[in-house]
Structure formats: C-alpha cells, structure tokens
C-alpha cells in the first residue's frame, strides 16, 4: 500500500480516525496508572554548584535503573523499596553518590561541583554523549562548550555550523548553516528552542546562524527515532537548550571575532527571578567603508538580541519568558547629477534598503507534579523580508529645486504565527508517558507592494498591490508517546503517534504520523535500536537571493497544488561501548519523501500585482538511504569523533530529468569527517576538522543548438540558443576536501568563574580548491567557451577573543 493512498484514506475517514486516536490517548493516560505497583519516585533538579544553572544530560543511576536529566536539569527515577546508592555523572563535574533508604517518594536536588582544571578530567568518569539507553536511533547530543574549541570560520563560534560535521548531516556549501539531515531538504529540518519552533535561522546570507553560542547550553540533533512531541517539519530536528541565568550572582562575558562582537549578562534579581540578556552585532560596516562617497554608499550589518527570564512562582511552578530577535540590514545609496549646460542640473537620488529578520517569543508556565511535569506556552513567531526604495528626481536651478517625481516603494513578504502549546510528562513504573498538543494561527504575507509616487504636490500613484490578501492557515497537532522498559531496561519500546492538521484555503489536511522505536541490549554490550517515523510538514518554503547578496527564506501555506510534505523513515542503529574511551555507532536508514517540494523551474519571485506565489514551487517524490559509521572518543585529552557516511539522495519532479529520479543537490557520497579537540597543554586546546566527501552534483550541458529563426518560424523560437543536458545533476565536481585547524589559549582564574580565551583558526588550512559554482568564460583567442568552476572560501585565517566572568 502506498502512503499516498493512506493519506487520502485518512482525509476521507478523518473523523473516525480522530475518534480512535482520542480514545487511544485517553486510555493511555488513565490505564497505566493502575500498574504503578510498589515503586517509589526519586526526582529533583541537578545544577551547577557555582552558577546555579541547571545541568542537562547528567546520567543518574541506581542499581539497574538510570535516566538522563532533561534540558531543565530535571530527572525522575523510579526505584523499588529498600536501600539505594544514587550516582550522578557528568563530564566536567565531580562524580556524586549518595546512599538512600527508600520507603517513600523522595525529592533530591543536587548541585555538582565543576572541576576547574581540565587536566583532572582524565580522572573522572565520562558520560557517553549520544544516548545509548533510550530507544531513539538517531539522536546526537552535543555539549556546546566542548564544540567551542573546534575551528570556526571568522573566529565566530556557531552552533549550526558545528553541526555540519555531525554524521548524517549532508555537507552544505562551505560555511552555510542550513542543515540537510540524511538527504532531506534543508527546509524540512525542525529548529526548536525550548520546544518552540524558530523560522529564521541565518544571518549574513547563511554564513552565520542567529543562535549566539553563549545563549545555549546544549544542542540535540535528532535524525530519526523522534519522539511524537517533535514535529512540524518533515525531516529531523535540531533542539536547542537555552542558557538559564546564573542563580548566585551576576555573570556573563563578551566575545570578539572577525564577524561580530557579542555581550552577555545573566544573574539573579532577588530570590525568584533570574535573567540572561545578550546582544550581538557585526561591525564590518563601522570599519570598512565600501565606495563611501557622497554619491555612493553601501552598508551591511546584522544583529540579534536574546532575553530569557525565569521567575520561580513556588517550589513547583516556574514561569519562563524568552525573546529571540534578529535582523540583517543591507542598504544602498546612489546620487547622480547631470548638468544640462543651461544652468540647470538634473539630480537623481535613490535610497534602497533590504531588511530580513524575525523574532520568536514565548511565555511558558511549567509545573512540576508528583510523577512528572507539564508545560503550557503562548508563543509568537515572525519572519519578514522588506525592501524599501525611496527615489527622488529633482531639477536644480541655482538655489531653486523643482521636484519632478518622488517615489516610495515598499515590498513585503513574511509570516506571523501565534501559538498555544501544551506538553505533559508522566513517569510510570516501567517507563513514561508523554502527551500534548498545539494550535497555531499562521498569517502568510505572500508578497505585496506599496507604491506612492508624487510630483510636487500632485499624487500620481498611490497603490497597494497584493497578489492575494493575507492568507490565514490554522494548524494543530495532538500527540502521545508511551515508553515502556522490559527486563530491567534490557529491552524497551516507544509507541507514539502525532496527528497533524491544517486548515487552509477552505480545505482540511490531516497527516497521521505514527512513531515506533524499539531498543534491545544484546550480548557483549551491544545496543540495537530500530525505529519507524512518519513526519508531516504543513507549510511550504522558497528561498531567494536578493540582489545576489541577501539570502532570505519565505514560507507559504498549503494549497490545492502543494499539499503536506510527508516523509517515512525506517532506521536501524547498533551501538557498542568499546572501552572506557571509545564507542562505536553504526546507522542504516531509508527515507521515502512524498510531495517534497523544490523551486519551480524559472520561478522568479517578485512583489507585484501579477506575481503568483503558488507557481514558485513544484512538488514530487524523493528517496534517501545510506549508512553511517561513527567512532566516538568520549574521554581522555583527545575527544571527538570520526565518521564515514555512505549516502544516496534522489528527487523525482515532473519537468526535471524527463520525470526520472535524479541526484539531490546536497547528496554527498562517501563522506569522511574527523572532528577532534586535544588538550595539548594545560592552557592550550587544539582543534581540527577534516572533511573528505564526494563533490557537489551539478548539471552540465552536453550539447547545444539554435532554434530556427525566420518569417515562417514558430513565434517562440526566435533563433535562441538551447543547452541540452544529459539529465539534471548529471555530473559532479571533484572530491571535496577541507582541513581546518584551531588553537585555543585558555586562561582561567582560580575562582573557576573568570576565564578568557584567545582562538586562532585556519579555515581550509591547505587552501584546497573546492568548487561550488559552474560558469562559462568566453575566450576570444580560441573563439570558444571554457567551463569554469568557482569556489567560495580559500584559506581563511581568523582570530577570536572571549572573556567570561
């Protein structure tokens, strides 16, 4: 049975399906309560002793039971009656153990002691970064502080660019932050901060992300085996955990790189409120003036601000507020004067600005309950692209200025979303239950133009063009996920489902998304995991590069022609802890993509009355499969991973490649990546990343011809030149190879809080020529064209400085 058929089946019988899912959800919420038995609950929060900030990813164990603390540092452990030794282990912190006699539920809040000297880390227990006990197959957790020391472009640490080195992330063009997970489209990747989706992720045409490294503590990359709570896009997810404010005293820091400077302050206000505020801005426009004269001025900058507040209402209730705001501004100014010779001068002034950015903000109320916690959040999301042009034509005669015309033109495209979200987590005697839902009102500005033209005081035009009125789309999803552990955790499975719905253009779209995962501990410490995920996406996406400089993302609602994108993924993972330092991970997966959308051939978005945004995209099918083999080094002075990924990714779109499957542009075969840091001296950490992969697929014409021209010819021919391709992406550039090096000089104050670091980076240290673009150059001497490849970045040396207190 094709899943496409099941979709139409679901639409027809959606009511019955909804009733069944709701009944299942209700049964799962109430029935398992009876099976709690004689187990007791140990729960609490784990935090940093120095800063008071919660610690995520801490391994908590007792006999055969164990769990990890979540992004709030919260953990819940269910144990039997009797004596227990509770152990808490986290990299960079001193191991903690306590003996408890359990005869009732216990609350245990613990602060771990940070080890100030990096050299001592060798003597502590290291925690495997990738979750080896859950049933999730493709989760990859990254401690952001560890990635601080790997080489970075322009000396600016970037969370999303660091992810490009993770196995299963198809390498994008050099330095671009968009992540294609396992060959899915980049727009299919979810970006969540504290569980709230974020739309705008990039600055500087994609070379930097909006996520300032100092504002986030942990990045979780989920490629498969997703929990039912993760959804909204058809691909995997990148989950970011925001940095909580220091609960003890004022702390923060600043950072300077070639790209930008940033500053952060966080701390407590009274006993109940903590805050974290940071600001980042590029400063190249202050230092380097390009063509900066009276007649020509160009400027570019980006900035972002992040505010996070936490208010403790009581022991069980916390309020969180977050604002993430970012913007890129590119401006041009031109002034041209033309003396006519009769004492008059014609003057033309044109001032143009491009603004691209957005904000995400939410208010979340989190409640800790006896056997779990719940969270309800109100969120608002915004992404916009604005292009404003002010043009003035004047005639100057002596001191008299006659205004010929004054034109103001504003183009706008964007998306506003307002959402309500609810999540609840319940610990069970043999697992846990997670359920919730969300509802979003989405307003799409698909493209409008306002034009005002005056001559002296006469109004010539005052028009607002809009291809269609603001389009409203309602989306909602309900989900549940039941996790059960069997045989003392040697086996576990997770069964969940998500029901995604959208009401758009008078039509209801429903995508049922089952999620199943199975885990088993095999002999010789091998872990085996399998998962099936179905993920739906209720919106479409188009990307433009305006004026060849500003990359912008545009979102569109579902239409009759472009329905929900749906991906089905089957994945298998084998994990083995080889010894105290090394672990092995092997993955295999197959993804089938239904209604995956790509840019319609020749689509050129413009903001005018005749613009039809629905023609921007065209959908088709896709498939992606491959294997990933990774060796992690989790302990010792050298840490990191080396991975080998053999992947294939294809698309099948009507109009392309004669309707046959072709290689997706981010398809990377045989990708070998090394990402390591090494504590060379007490104050010196070295970092390197090595990438060796198959080159970019590219379409190369194999022949050309001229269409006829003449009085009797077909009107569309006009004698024009036609390039003939053997197929889309019929060729590929050579092997992509890049080696980056970094040296981090770290100075720490004995108090363990103050720290400064100076980083020297060599990006593409061997200056490898990695072509990314293909063009033709005409050679007059030979009277022939030459195919020419161009690259974006050769060797880029950079420095960065960071101070923390």
């Amino acid at each position: 049975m094709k899943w496409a058929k099941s979709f139409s089946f679901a639409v027809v019988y959606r009511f019955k399906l909804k009733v069944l899912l709701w009944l299942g959800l209700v049964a799962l919420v109430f029935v398992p309560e009876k099976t709690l038995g004689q187990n007791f609950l140990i729960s609490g929060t784990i935090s940093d002793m120095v800063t008071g900030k919660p610690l995520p990813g801490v391994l908590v164990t007792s006999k055969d039971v164990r769990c990890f603390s979540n992004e709030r540092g919260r953990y819940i452990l269910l144990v039997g009656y009797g004596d227990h030794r509770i152990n808490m282990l986290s990299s960079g912190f001193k191991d903690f153990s306590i003996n408890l006699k359990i005869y009732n539920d216990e609350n245990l809040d613990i602060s771990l002691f940070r080890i100030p000297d990096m050299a001592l880390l060798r003597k502590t227990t290291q925690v495997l970064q990738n979750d080896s006990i859950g049933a999730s197959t493709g989760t990859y957790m990254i401690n952001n502080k560890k990635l601080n020391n790997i080489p970075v472009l322009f000396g600016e640490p970037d969370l999303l660019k660091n992810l490009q080195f993770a196995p299963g992330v198809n390498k994008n063009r050099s330095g671009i932050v968009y992540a294609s997970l396992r060959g899915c489209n980049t727009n299919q990747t979810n970006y969540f901060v504290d569980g709230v989706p974020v739309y705008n992720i990039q600055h500087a045409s994609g070379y930097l992300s909006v996520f300032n490294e100092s504002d986030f503590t942990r990045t979780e990359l989920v490629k498969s085996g997703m929990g039912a709570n993760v959804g909204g896009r058809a691909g995997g997810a990148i989950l970011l955990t925001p940095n909580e404010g220091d609960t003890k005293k004022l702390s923060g820091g600043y950072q300077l790189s070639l790209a930008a400077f940033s500053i952060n302050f966080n701390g407590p206000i009274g006993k109940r409120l903590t805050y974290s505020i940071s600001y980042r801005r590029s400063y190249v426009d202050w230092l380097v003036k390009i063509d900066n004269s009276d007649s020509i001025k160009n400027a570019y900058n980006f900035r972002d601000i992040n505010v996070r507040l936490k208010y403790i209402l009581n022991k069980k209730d916390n309020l969180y507020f977050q604002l993430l705001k970012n913007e890129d501004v590119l401006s041009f100014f031109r002034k041209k004067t033309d003396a006519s010779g009769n004492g008059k001068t014609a003057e033309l002034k044109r001032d143009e600005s491009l603004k691209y950015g957005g904000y995400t903000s939410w208010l979340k109320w989190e409640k800790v309950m006896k056997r779990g916690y719940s969270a309800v959040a109100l969120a608002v999301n915004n992404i916009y692209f604005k292009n404003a042009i002010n043009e003035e034509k004047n005639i100057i005669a002596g001191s008299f200025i006659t205004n010929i015309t004054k034109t103001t033109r504003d183009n706008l495209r964007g998306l506003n979303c307002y959402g309500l979200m609810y999540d609840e987590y319940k610990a069970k005697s043999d697992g846990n239950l997670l359920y919730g839902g969300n509802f979003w009102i989405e307003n799409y500005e698909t493209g409008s133009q306002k034009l005002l033209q005056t001559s002296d005081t006469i109004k010539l035009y005052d028009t607002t063009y809009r291809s269609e009125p603001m389009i409203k789309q309602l989306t909602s999803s309900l989900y549940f996920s039941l996790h059960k552990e069997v045989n003392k955790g040697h086996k576990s499975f997770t069964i969940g489902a998500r029901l995604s719905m959208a009401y758009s253009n008078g039509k209801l779209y429903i995508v049922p998304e089952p999620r199943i995962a199975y885990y088993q501990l095999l002999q010789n410490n091998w872990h085996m995991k399998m998962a099936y995920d179905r993920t739906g996406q209720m919106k479409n996406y188009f990307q433009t590069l305006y004026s060849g400089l500003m990359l912008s993302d545009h979102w569109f609602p579902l239409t009759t022609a472009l329905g929900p994108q749906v991906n089905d993924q089957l994945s298998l993972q084998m994990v083995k802890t080889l010894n105290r330092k090394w672990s092995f991970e092997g993955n295999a997966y197959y993804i089938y993509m239904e209604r995956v959308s790509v840019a319609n051939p020749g689509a050129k978005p413009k903001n005018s009355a005749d613009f039809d945004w629905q023609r921007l995209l065209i959908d088709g099918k896709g498939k992606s499969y491959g294997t990933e083999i990774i060796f992690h080094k989790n302990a010792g002075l050298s840490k990191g991973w080396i991975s080998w990924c053999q992947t294939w990714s294809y698309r099948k779109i009507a109009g392309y490649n004669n309707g046959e499957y072709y290689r997706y542009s981010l398809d990377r075969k045989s990708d070998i990546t090394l990402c390591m840091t090494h504590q060379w001296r007490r104050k010196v950490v070295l970092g390197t990343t090595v990438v060796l992969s198959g080159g970019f697929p590219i379409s190369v014409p194999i022949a050309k011809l001229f269409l006829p021209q003449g009085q009797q010819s077909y009107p569309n021919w006009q004698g024009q030149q036609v390039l003939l391709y053997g197929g889309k992406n019929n060729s590929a550039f050579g092997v992509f190879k890049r080696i980056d090096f970094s040296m981090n000089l770290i100075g720490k104050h004995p108090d363990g809080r103050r720290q400064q670091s100076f980083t020297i980076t060599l990006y593409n240290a061997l200056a490898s020529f990695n072509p990314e673009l293909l063009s033709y150059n005409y050679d007059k001497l030979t009277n022939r064209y030459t195919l020419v490849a161009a690259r974006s970045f050769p060797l880029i040396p950079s420095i960065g400085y960071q101070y923390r207190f």
Partner: protein
Amino acid sequence: MKPRFIKLLLYNVLIIGIIPSCERPANLNSKFEEHKQVVNCLFANGDNFYVYTSLTGTPIDSNLFGTDSNSVVILYENAVFKEIIPYVKFYSVYKSSTIAKAGANYKLEVRNPRFADNRYQVDAVATIPDSISILNAYFKDSAKQDALGNWLGKIHFEIADIAGMLNPEMFIEYYDAQRAQYSPILSFIPDNNWKKYASTGVTSATYTISNSDWKGAAVAFDLYVTSIDYNVNGLTQFRLNLSNLSSDWRTYQTSLSAYIKAGGTDQLQIYSNIIGQGYGIFAGKYVSRVVVK
C-alpha cells in the same frame, strides 16, 4: 584592540582570503555529446510544411552549425511518398509544395549527406488533430465605456464542444493597415482556467477581457479592445484563430515555455519527438480562422 588594527586585520583577511578565491577550469566527469541532427517543423491544416534542419554543437562552441541546406528532407502522407522537400534559400528553410490536410498522417525523414554515418538519419511522424470551429463571432463598435470614459469595441465568439477538444488554443490578431499584415493581440488557452482568469477582469493598456461564460456545450467569450488598437486608419478587422494542438505540440510548447522562462539555467529538457539520434519537433495542429469586422 584598536580599530585601526582591526581594520588592518580585516583588509589582510580580504587579501589572503577573497582575492585567491579565483576560478579554475572545471574538472568534471561528464563528456560532451557528438553532433546530432536537429529537425523542427510545426504545421497546420491548409499550410505548407516549413522544415528547419541543423546540427547540435558542444556547449563550448561559439559557432554552431546553422540551418543546413544540404539535407535530404522526404515527406510521406498516409505512408505514401509525397515529395522531397526543396530548400528555399530566401527563407532559409525547406518549404513543401504539399499542403497539410486535416486527419492525414505525415512522416518526415531527414538525411544529412555530409555524414555517411546513418546516425544522421532521423524521422518523425505527426497527425493533425480533429477539426474545430468558432461559432457566432462578431465585432461590435463602441460597445461600452471604460472607467476613464474611453469607448471599447467588443469581439464576441463562442467555441463549440470545448470540453471535447484535447488542446485548444486561441490566438487573436488585428489587421495593421500600415504594415498590411495581422499583428497579435492575445493568445490564451480557452478552458476552465481561462474562465477563472477572465472573471477577475484582467486589464491592460490594450485589452480588457470579461464576462466569459459557459453556455451549454459552448463557451462564450467577450474581448473588449480599446479604440487605439482596433481603429487604425479607420479599418477595423480582427482575425480569430482557434487551434486544436496535437499532444506532441502541446507538450513541446509547455516544455519550451518553461525553458525560456527559466532562462535556460534550470536544466530543463525541451521535448523532442524525433526518432533516431536527433532532437526537435514534428507536430501538427488544426486551425479554424474567422475574420470579424
């Protein structure tokens, strides 16, 4: 750090980094195709066959083989030899003396004697689709005024059994007395989408279309034209061309339009129905013409 130092550093990065980011001849694993025969011929009932032949070149060639005058172009009608089409130098095209008939099957064979290799022998087959007709066509002068008070003329026509037509296309021209020839006004596909398109009242400087409506099996269209366009030298004459395209023609037209729209940069394939080692199109259409005054 002082701003001057940072500025110096940035300039150094620009020099070291961006300037060497030059281009190199591409090292690709694809090969160019050898020359192939190109044949293009689109014909309609009542017209001669105009056949254009040429050869493909490699993408790096600046000069291509233009129209080839040495080819042997053979036309068959209903599987019977009809003629070897002669080359007409004045038009740079092979022009047949045979007039295309509705309902007949045609086959075209093209051989290039410059190459002994039979790779340069291609053929193609085509048929003119079913006949169609325009009903109740008329022109009415000064039919209504636009918002600015200008008088508009109305062209009215109806199309019978539009639902039964595979690939209808309407092409409207006006007679330009100064140039003594018909010039185009509008081309469109008269189907359901047209109805939606027309109902939005699309207006331009030259024409306004509105009030199209279904009438049983027929569709009625009203096309409003400004006086500037139709009242040239006091002569008012319009030619309505309703075509029924063959499937090959429509597929070719769609792919060619997409290619032109994409600027040749999106690796789109232009449809070809040439059999053998070649490219091009050989397709027919049925045209019904009505002149209204």
